[in-house]
């Protein structure tokens, strides 16, 4: 195959070292055309070779043209947007001014933390129907203890002093209540 190239370059010495021509020669289907052109030079063979090279060269040129254009366009696009944003700041993005850092955005109060309403009883808080039914089935005392333990987050000792009973009694009915709830749930499931 190398001899083909040599022969070709002997006829067209200008093309030697041309990268597009070199890469064109590496593809087998182009070498076929080249062989045909060199063995029996005719206008049609020349045309075929020329067309194939045109397509090959176009591929290279167009790809590099589009690639670099896309790159520069992206860079310019980003620059333009930054410039625009710098000039047309949204009110909240504007700096506070004075010596203070930050923007007006930092001054917005967080309204999210006030959104959760404190539940008074577990009855309002339980969303599972089966669990709610089981909870209502507990005794008044058990429900009161669970409310204090999970809504007010008190420990057994605090509950005991609030209700005026011993800590052991609270602990016991707490445990009984949970056991009952679990039994009810497992029965339902």
């Amino acid at each position, binding site marked *: 195959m190398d001899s083909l190239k040599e022969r070709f370059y002997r006829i067209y010495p200008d093309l030697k070292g041309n990268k597009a021509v070199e890469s064109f020669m590496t593809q087998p289907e182009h070498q076929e055309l080249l062989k045909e052109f060199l063995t029996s030079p005719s206008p049609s063979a020349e045309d075929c070779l020329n067309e194939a090279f045109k*397509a090959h060269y176009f591929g290279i040129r167009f*790809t590099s043209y589009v690639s670099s254009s896309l790159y520069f366009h992206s860079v310019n696009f980003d620059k333009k947007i930054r410039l625009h944003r710098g000039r047309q700041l949204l009110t909240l993005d504007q700096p506070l001014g004075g010596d203070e850092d930050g923007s007006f955005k930092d001054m917005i109060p967080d309204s999210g933390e006030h959104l959760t309403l404190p539940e008074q009883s577990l009855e309002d808080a339980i969303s599972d129907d089966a669990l709610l039914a089981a909870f209502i089935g507990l005794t008044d005392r058990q429900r009161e203890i669970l409310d204090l333990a999970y809504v007010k987050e008190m420990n057994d000792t605090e509950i005991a002093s609030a209700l005026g009973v011993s800590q052991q009694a609270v602990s016991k009915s707490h445990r009984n209540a949970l056991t009952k709830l679990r039994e009810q749930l497992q029965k339902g499931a």
Partner: protein
Amino acid sequence: MNALYEMVKEAKDNSLYEVNVVRTFEPKIRKSLHLTQQENREDLEQELKIKVITYVRNYSLEDVPGLFDLTK
């Protein structure tokens, strides 16, 4: 035959095929999107696709030199 050459040639005859060229350059477009911030990427993507289509329309196939034009 070079696939891109065929594709562009087709696209010039029938603009329905332009989308094929855009699809070919999709990876390059996606890479270019990283040059701007997240919130502007969709805009840029659209711009770049339009660009590719205008390149296809404006790039002259005849201006590509043939093998023997290079000898001069």
